[in-house]
């Protein structure tokens, strides 16, 4: 161990906080660049330092108990509540205001009446999962902040074209991004649930502010949808805190060790509910879709390393308490339905960012389902899904953002022929897409593990949901990939204008995607399996979800595919011929030809969106009905179990 764990945690919490403070003060472009890049790199280094000490080590836990901290955090909670209340009054949003008041009342009552009587042995901890999360937050999160430097510069220029007098609000933007990272680090290291709650609320309010950043009506409405849904989760969290406090336990590890039975059943379900709202599971998916109005770095941050990942982190943490009990079944069904329905809706979306959003919700659904299954095999799959989703999604969002700035659209149809216009970017985007849905890349291997864990627990319903969900997943990724990799004509390469800060982060993400896919068997062997076996509930002698040989085969195929692309990308020796266009070709790039009547005709071909089958309008009510029913049953039954009533 190189450093005291408490120092490392302190470093990770304070570095982004300090950066956020500095960014509010330093308002010049040059200064901001220095601060963002230097702190970004420092945070990355700090997480690597943490990983060097604790990634493969034993769990560390410790106390850091000073009453002053509790009061400070309470003050933060109240400030957040007042801020949201103020915004609600300003924009006349009654529900958000009411929820803010309810939450404030709950947390104040909890801190003064209940919390003082609860003894807490360990406030903080570090284990394998929290180190993995810290790496995701630290490396991807800071990477996105660096990317945002270039992106927001162009964003600001675009905004200024529309309205020359608009105020440059980038200092606030970057401060919020770094504050977000602090809160995320706090969530993954906090064993004391009251502490975690405070960080939880900071992430909610940060994303509220980031979504409303552009201050258009749409942005403000969507930010309020976000806050209302996440406040529901927050309220569930407060109720869980009160119920747990009354029983004298507020430590995450103690709660998990006791399992989902009896008096702990309801609080665990409420915590999982908070996780589900944050992870934008159906019926709460609409806040994440609404979040698309924000600038792309915000979307990338919310989707890949923060916010939704806090939600699934919570559910994965609680996994040992799930399985074949009321809570477990409710959680796995919500995840399963979300995966199937949201994958299907993604087919009907022509907007690249919405496809990414639905795919995020769907994949988080898969993670939630795995956590609900609650076996070590399923959690193995969930952790890998989390890692690969974070990396691949950030790569994809950043690529789409850069493409949007250069081709002026986020419509997939407009990305036709991108391979010619922006070859490097198109290939990297293709890499991200491949990672999301096809063997030998990470997400599919994790899905394979999901199938194994489901079949081992004889979970027929979820297997069927997964099989159909995987098939529709193939549809929406493959058709996007096809458009992207189309080759025609010699259009000008517009890639040269892309900002250096954007390239550096995109390059880093691409390296991570390939590196992690190749290193999969070793990450499993050295990091994830030891972590799972260190859990007291799962202490068995061995854990092999997919045999090491098969993982190695996949890793070799990754190398082969990537190398063949790299080598082949240069050679052209075949004779090339124009395509067939039912007439005499005129312009093959525009696909125009002289038809039999000697009229110049244009052939056009759009992808299929099958809106008759998979439209948002028809699928969403169905998905909502399924998931609301499941959640209601879960909450009612776990409430009844307090009085000893069970199925």
């Amino acid at each position, binding site marked *: 161990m190189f450093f005291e764990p408490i120092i490392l945690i302190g470093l990770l919490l304070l570095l982004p906080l300090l950066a956020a403070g500095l960014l509010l003060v330093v308002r010049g472009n040059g200064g901001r660049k220095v601060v963002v890049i230097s702190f970004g790199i420092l945070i990355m280094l700090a997480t690597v330092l943490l990983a060097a000490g604790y990634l493969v080590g034993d769990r560390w836990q410790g106390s850091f108990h000073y009453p002053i901290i509790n009061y400070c955090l309470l003050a933060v909670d109240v400030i957040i509540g007042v801020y949201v209340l103020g915004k609600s009054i300003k924009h006349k949003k009654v529900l958000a205001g009411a929820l803010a008041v309810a939450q404030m009342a709950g947390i104040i009552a909890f801190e003064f009446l209940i919390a003082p009587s609860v003894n807490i042995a360990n406030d903080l901890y570090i284990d394998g999962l929290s180190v993995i999360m810290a790496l995701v937050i630290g490396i991807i999160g800071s990477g996105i902040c660096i990317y945002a430097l270039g992106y927001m510069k162009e964003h600001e220029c675009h905004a200024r074209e529309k309205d020359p007098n608009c105020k440059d609000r980038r200092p606030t933007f970057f401060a919020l991004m770094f504050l977000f990272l602090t809160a995320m680090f706090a969530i993954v290291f906090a064993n004391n649930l009251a502490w975690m709650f405070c960080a939880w609320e900071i992430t909610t309010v940060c994303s509220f502010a980031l979504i409303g950043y552009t201050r258009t009506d749409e942005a403000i409405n969507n930010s309020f949808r976000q806050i209302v849904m996440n406040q529901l989760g927050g309220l569930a969290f407060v109720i869980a805190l009160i119920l747990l406090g009354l029983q004298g336990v507020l430590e995450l590890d103690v709660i998990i060790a006791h399992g989902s039975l009896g008096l702990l059943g309801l609080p665990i379900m409420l915590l999982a509910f908070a996780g589900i709202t944050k992870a934008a599971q159906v019926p709460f998916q609409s806040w994440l879709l609404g979040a698309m109005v924000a600038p792309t770095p915000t979307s990338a941050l919310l989707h890949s390393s923060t916010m939704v990942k806090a939600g699934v982190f919570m559910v994965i943490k609680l996994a040992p308490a799930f399985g074949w009990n009321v809570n477990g079944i409710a959680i796995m069904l919500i995840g399963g339905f979300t995966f199937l329905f949201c994958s299907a809706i993604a087919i009907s979306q022509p907007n690249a960012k919405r496809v990414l959003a639905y795919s995020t919700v769907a994949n988080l659904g898969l993670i939630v389902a795995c956590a609900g299954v609650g076996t070590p095999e399923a959690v193995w799959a969930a952790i890998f899904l989390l890692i690969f989703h974070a990396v691949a999604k950030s790569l994809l969002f950043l690529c789409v953002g850069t493409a949007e700035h250069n081709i002026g659209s986020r419509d997939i149809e407009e990305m*036709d*022929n991108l391979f010619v216009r922006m070859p490097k970017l198109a290939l990297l985007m293709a890499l991200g897409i491949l990672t999301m849905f*096809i*063997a*030998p890349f990470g997400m*599919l291997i994790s899905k*394979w593990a999901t*199938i*194994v864990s489901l*079949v*081992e627990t*004889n979970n*027929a319903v979820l*297997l*069927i949901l*997964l*099989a*159909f969900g*995987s*098939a*529709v997943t*193939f*549809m929406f990724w*493959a*058709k996007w*990939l*096809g*458009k992207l*990799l*189309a*080759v*025609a004509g010699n259009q000008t390469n517009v890639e040269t204008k892309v900002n250096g800060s954007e390239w550096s982060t995109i390059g880093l993400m691409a390296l991570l995607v390939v590196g992690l896919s190749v290193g999969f068997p070793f990450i499993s062997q050295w990091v994830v399996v030891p972590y799972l076996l260190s859990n007291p509930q799962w202490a068995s002698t061995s854990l092999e979800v997919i*045999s090491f*040989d*098969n993982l190695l*085969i*996949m890793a070799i*195929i990754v190398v082969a*595919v990537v190398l*063949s692309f790299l080598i*082949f990308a240069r*050679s*052209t*020796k*075949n*004779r*090339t*011929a*124009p*395509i*067939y*266009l*039912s007439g005499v070709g005129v312009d093959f790039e525009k*696909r125009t030809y002289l038809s039999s009547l000697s009229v110049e005709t244009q*052939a*056009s*071909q759009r*992808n*299929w969106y099958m809106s008759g*089958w998979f439209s948002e309008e028809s699928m969403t009510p169905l998905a909502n009905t399924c998931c609301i029913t499941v959640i209601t049953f879960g909450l009612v039954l776990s409430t009844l179990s307090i009085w000893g009533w069970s199925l």
Partner: protein
Amino acid sequence: MTIISFVVAFVAFAVLAPLIGGVIAGADRIVTARLQGRVGPPILQPFYDVKKLLAKDDSVTHSFQGFYVFLSMVFTVLAGAFFFAGGNFLLVIFILMLATLFFIIAAYSTRSPFAEIGAEREIIQVMAYEPMVILMAVTFYMATIPMLGEGTFNVGAVFALDRPLIVALPFVFIGLLFILTIKLRKSPFDLSYSHHAHTELVKGISTEMTGRTLAIVEIIHWYETVLFLGWVGLFLVWGSWIGVVVAIVGMILVYLLEVFIDNNFARVKWQFMLASSWIVTLVCVAINMVLIQVIF
């Protein structure tokens, strides 16, 4: 599956499968001709066709096209090799999916409107058959639990059985036969690419492929035919030489059934293909899962 057995299977499949697949294609054409009241070509005609394609001038729309098709063949061979070496069923399915994806990309990359329509249809075909394929592997595992004492995804385990899998998985077998029509590119489900010139929209997914590229597409089809018949055999074989004979006879009968279906049904719309495949998959798999739970 050791490395040696894999290498043997790889070489054997790479060399033998096109020979067997080509002969099957030739026999297919003769049977089809007889069903239509014609004499038909010699049985080796598919080999002559491919030889001619290989001799043609090699032209492509751009340099990546041939590369994608070649990758598609490599992964098809790899999938077949893992299957016949007795490897993990899911591994086979996922590698095959990669091969299919590269074929789709090859068509898309030409940016020809006709090839694009073919590629879209191919994707819809994947969407139609993929649930059944995954659930076939899943029910394979479920059935081996009572039959072998512990569940496995390794297809080599069928040789340890004392009865064929079809005893436990009759409905899954029916489901497989249904989607096999899509996978073997037989009418009524030959939406993306057909051997029947009269039903084809130009030439579907292979519109822009000629010469060596088209020859490879043809050879990929032979590999796939052998691999998919292997899937059929998986349900029929058990650990005895009689089992092997039964499996071979069963595969021949299944292929004849496919040829019969091919010649008696006109191509349907994608809506019907997708809906019917999904319904058949859901019904067959659900009934069979219950069956395994109740009877075994």
